[in-house]
């Protein structure tokens, strides 16, 4: 048995064990910390920063920070809620999110978080960047308009040799997540589906299906994310 330790999240005492992250410990205790780039059973990379919590006035990401005995964590404060909301808004304005046209609408984690934080209009100006769609001759369509660069596809979608279907390109403001144009031509039905499912937003779309869940029955139509 791992040694038991105690931590506090917004004043609530939690008993957990070492070698867990704050996110895992919270999850086990039904405390919701929002995530976007985190994906179960993969190494966290903390790209989205949405799971930011505070310990001793320092911002840390819950998905990467291990618990330590006696830790006092702030999660649902006004300041953090506004920070998370602003990150969601940033992701909206720096892409092109036309939800009514999007196959993922209703099942999209970005949108669901916007609902959760009651985003009515982003505080930042819309950028309307010009973005590509990639996917000629493939079973999938990679729509750069909707990609939030969480890198979940990079971490999870690989072939038998371990080669990645998706990779990062450029850096900074120009950064993109692109598919390997050769590999996606031969991507299997299964892998394509998995890629689409693992993407939190509608940036990876399996062709020839879509809009097959009526409004009202989709994941986040009635149930807020994290409930």
């Amino acid at each position, binding site marked *: 048995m791992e040694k038991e330790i105690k931590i506090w999240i917004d004043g609530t005492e939690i008993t957990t064990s070492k070698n867990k992250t704050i996110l895992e410990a919270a999850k086990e205790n039904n405390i919701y910390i929002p995530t976007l780039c985190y994906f179960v059973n993969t190494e966290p990379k903390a790209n989205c920063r949405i799971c930011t919590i505070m310990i001793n006035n320092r911002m840390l990401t819950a998905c990467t920070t291990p618990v330590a005995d006696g830790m006092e964590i702030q999660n649902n404060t006004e300041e953090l809620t506004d920070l998370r909301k602003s990150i969601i808004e940033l992701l909206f304005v720096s892409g*092109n999110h*036309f*939800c*009514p*046209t*999007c196959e993922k*609408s*209703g099942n999209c984690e970005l*949108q669901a978080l*916007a*609902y959760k934080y*009651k985003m*009515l*209009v982003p505080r930042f*100006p*819309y950028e*309307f*960047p*010009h*973005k590509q769609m990639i996917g000629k001759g493939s079973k999938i369509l990679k729509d750069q308009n909707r990609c939030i660069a969480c890198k979940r596809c990079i971490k999870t979608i690989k072939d038998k040799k371990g080669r990645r279907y998706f990779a990062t390109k450029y850096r900074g403001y120009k950064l993109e997540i692109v598919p390997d144009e050769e590999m996606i031509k031969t991507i299997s039905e299964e892998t394509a589906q998995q890629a689409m499912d693992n993407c939190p937003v509608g940036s990876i779309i399996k062709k020839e299906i879509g809009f097959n869940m009526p*409004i009202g029955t989709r994941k986040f*139509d*009635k149930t*807020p994310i994290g409930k």
Partner: protein
Amino acid sequence: MIEKSNKKIIATASLAGCFGCHMSILDIDDRLLDLIELVTFDKSPINDLKQFTQPIDIGIIEGGCCNSENIENLKYFRQNCKTLISLGECAIMGGLPAMRNGISIKECLQEAYLDGPTVQENKEGILPNDEELPLLLDKVYPCHEIVKIDYFLPGCPPRADLIWNALTAILLGKDIELPYEVLKFD
């Protein structure tokens, strides 16, 4: 008629929108009758009044701005309305018409009138340039990037309940209630 002075005055407009938001206003169903008790409609496509006839309390804008007429109209509303609401995705972020943003006007017009697969016959290569037509803008603008907007009600179309909650709250000077089911972007 005597009570009219107590009623708030509402005006609405559809800019680069599809009238879906206006439909959604009507979609508040029998509550329309309650609404009529509280407000009077001035300039609006609903009653086909073309001019403002008095100072407006609440202006409701559907659609973003894709041409010069939209801009004029929106500014006209701002000048005449105490409170201005962006109603729906198009007013808030340009919506579907804004899918052309990021593509140059030249490419858009070429595709639509000259080279696109759905162009039937345009041998002379005519482009819409009649002086009567409003001028196209380089992109579709959200309303709040043109004038100050006081409230935003998202949705495509916005849920009737959202419109109802918002209008009644604004009329009664309360905070708008936003239950989970009413705030949606599609």
